[in-house]
């Protein structure tokens, strides 16, 4: 009886019913980058603690961050951070009640994607330049 009622009650459509859209993907990306940055924060804490503990510990952390995997992780976190930041600024603009029309949200979405990639590359180019490479 209960099961029958549950099956018959009108259900609101969920995610899988919709065609994937850019704005929807941006919303998901904002969450994923946010969750990923929690790991990034733990790495920052690890780095700071290593500095506080002395040169040997710092050397160990630097070896990890300097490795291929370390660099790949840092690159991913740089992008996630910038993407989440630009996405967040977009949300702050929306909080004021502006920029909510269809065209603007699409423009914001593309600006976040392109902006995050360009800024990430820029940060890394400056970083490598700083090291004397590139």
């Amino acid at each position, binding site marked *: 009886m209960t099961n029958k009622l549950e099956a018959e009650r009108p259900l609101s459509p969920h995610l899988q019913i919709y065609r994937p859209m850019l704005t929807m993907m941006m919303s998901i990306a904002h969450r994923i980058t946010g*969750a990923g940055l929690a790991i990034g924060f*733990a790495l920052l804490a690890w780095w700071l603690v290593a*500095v506080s503990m002395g040169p040997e510990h*710092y*050397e160990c952390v630097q070896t990890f961050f300097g490795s291929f995997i370390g660099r790949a992780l840092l690159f991913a976190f740089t992008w996630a951070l910038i993407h989440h930041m630009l996405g967040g600024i977009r949300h702050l603009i929306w909080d004021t009640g502006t920029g909510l029309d269809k065209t603007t949200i699409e423009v914001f979405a593309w600006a976040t994607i392109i902006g995050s990639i360009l800024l990430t590359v820029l940060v890394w180019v400056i970083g490598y330049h700083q090291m004397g490479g590139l």
Partner: protein
Amino acid sequence: MATPLKRIRGLGAAHHGTETFWRQRLTAVANVPLLIFLIWFVVSHVGASYDKVRECLANPIVAVLMLALIWSAAIHMRIGLREIIEDYVHTKMCKTVSLMAVTFFAALVGLASTLAILKISFGS
């Protein structure tokens, strides 16, 4: 009919109104300049020696900005991770445990970073 005053007195089902929403926005605004500062700090110290990095982190302005970043980001992270759990975890026990775990994680990461900055600042 409920008047706006009457509605706001109860502060909603959770009894703290829009506090979490507001705190998330407040920390978001603070995080923007603080994280730009962090990126600048990390990039400008690529390849620097241990002594140089430690000396720069001990600078009071750098230390205060780092502490502000750590606390603002930890609060922001706790709210965001809780929101994800509240949306996707529906088993009561699992939800309670993961919400607690998020707070413990935010506190651990925040406190460890804070202690590190203080140790570096006071040179012990």
